[in-house]
């Protein structure tokens, strides 16, 4: 089979996603303001209360703002992944999902293209956020900014695949509020994004156990280590595995004969 048409398909889907993102300036602004508020307000306020003792991968004692940055990077991707899940529901209601799915390319490939497209959008957001954080004074080694790129692709695909999977369950747009409450908040708060796991364990053993099982914790740790030019093999392994499993389930969910699409039937008529 010739390769070029496949690449054109990927380029088309990614290009459309980026163009749409550029046109939605308010979405871009919201995606940036959210983590920046956490960084400037929440973290700055907690700096006094919460010094973070030496913990991997950091070489010294660090300020709380420094600790929280990788978690906020994960938060950007988490919100973006869920937002793209929202846009899948929206797309399906508006019918443009149909345009994607009547392409002659196999459905799994179309969904992978869609996933990569939303991940790249989140990577753009992350780098803009890191640039602002750097200007504010929270800097990682220069090479770290390159190291995190593959980590961001994995974590972006992980939350994106989760979003895809959710979009097969969610039928209406209004359900995004439900996703916020039942997916984004628990995943974010019950993870190592805001506090190191050892500190969570001091507070509550149950919370610690949930956070240790939360795949988002491992995505954040993967990013955290990469930012300081370190490899956290366990986090990478878990993140990649979870991504593949979620993606497989999402593809199954969009299978026309077996998945949930079939059960829902067509809109209209």
């Amino acid at each position, binding site marked *: 089979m010739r390769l070029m048409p496949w690449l054109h398909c990927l380029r088309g889907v990614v290009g459309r996603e980026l163009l749409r993102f550029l046109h939605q300036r308010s979405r871009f602004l919201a995606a940036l303001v959210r983590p920046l508020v956490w960084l400037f307000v929440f973290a700055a306020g907690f700096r006094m209360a919460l010094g973070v003792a030496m913990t991997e991968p950091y070489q010294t004692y660090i300020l709380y703002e420094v600790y929280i940055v990788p978690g906020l990077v994960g938060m950007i991707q988490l919100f973006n992944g869920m937002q793209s899940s929202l846009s899948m529901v929206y797309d399906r209601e508006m019918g443009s999902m149909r345009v*994607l799915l009547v392409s002659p390319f196999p459905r799994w490939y179309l969904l992978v293209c869609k996933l990569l497209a939303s991940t790249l959008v989140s990577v753009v957001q992350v780098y803009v956020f890191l640039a602002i954080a750097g200007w504010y004074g929270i800097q990682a080694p220069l090479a770290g900014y390159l190291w995190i790129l593959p980590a961001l692709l994995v974590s972006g695909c992980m939350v994106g695949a989760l979003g895809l999977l959710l979009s097969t369950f969610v039928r209406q747009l209004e359900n995004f509020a439900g996703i916020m409450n039942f997916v984004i908040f628990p995943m974010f708060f019950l993870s190592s994004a805001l506090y190191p796991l050892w500190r969570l364990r001091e507070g509550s053993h149950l919370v610690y156990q949930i956070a240790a099982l939360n795949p988002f914790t491992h995505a954040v740790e993967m990013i955290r280590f990469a930012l300081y030019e370190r490899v956290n093999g366990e986090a990478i392994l878990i993140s990649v595995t979870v991504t593949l499993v979620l993606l497989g389930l999402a593809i199954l969910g969009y299978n*026309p004969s077996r998945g949930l699409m079939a059960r829902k039937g067509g809109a209209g008529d």
Partner: protein
Amino acid sequence: MSDVSAHDGGEPALEVRELSFAYAGTPVLDAVSLAIAAGEFAVLLGPNGAGKTTLFSLITRLHDRRRGEIRIGGFDVRRQAVQAHARIGVVFQQPTLDLDLNVAQNLAYHGALHGMGPGEARRRGEAQLTRVGLAELRRRRVRRLSGGQRRRVEIARGLLHEPRLLLLDEPTVGLDVASRRDLVEHAHRLCAEEGVAVLWATHLIDEVRPGDRVLVLHRGRLLADSTAEALTARLGVATLGEAFDRLVGEDAPCV
């Protein structure tokens, strides 16, 4: 109707055999069989809820938990999905253009989804836009187009990959009389000049023109399949409207 009929080895552009589909236990389509030759214009006439959109969803394989067989140009939509899909162009009932992108960007996206490079998509896009009379608007955002113009862009998009079968699902919804007439005429020209087979779903009887083949779908069953003239003659009535009322009963009149 044109005499072009030898595409894809003389296979019908669309062949549906004994197609049945149930949604949540309720039958939506019941043993529907039909065939449309290359270059043929067929109107799928049925009241709302007759199963028209479901039929289209099954042909385009948006879902396919069903019984029966569907072939596009001889290719089975399940087993030879790639070849079958490449031969279908669709204009969906709901608008599906990206409103914030311009006309050319929308077409380029569709071209990419069919594996075309940017240059090829642009060339074909320009040709199709010229055909629907929108060449000078290719840089305009879709949001700023009228309803009729948007529909024409969707038709241009549906034809970008040169399908042998064009499905239109109530394409005139929300359009004024002049735009509707233009669209019907345009679709007929496509059949005559390009040999594209067109299946035009509607609940509007006045969109049927003399000589058109009419397929009457009601409650998931195909009640008639002949030209409008043959249908009225068979039922001994004066107009297609009366023929339709006779077929589906008074409970679901078309307008």
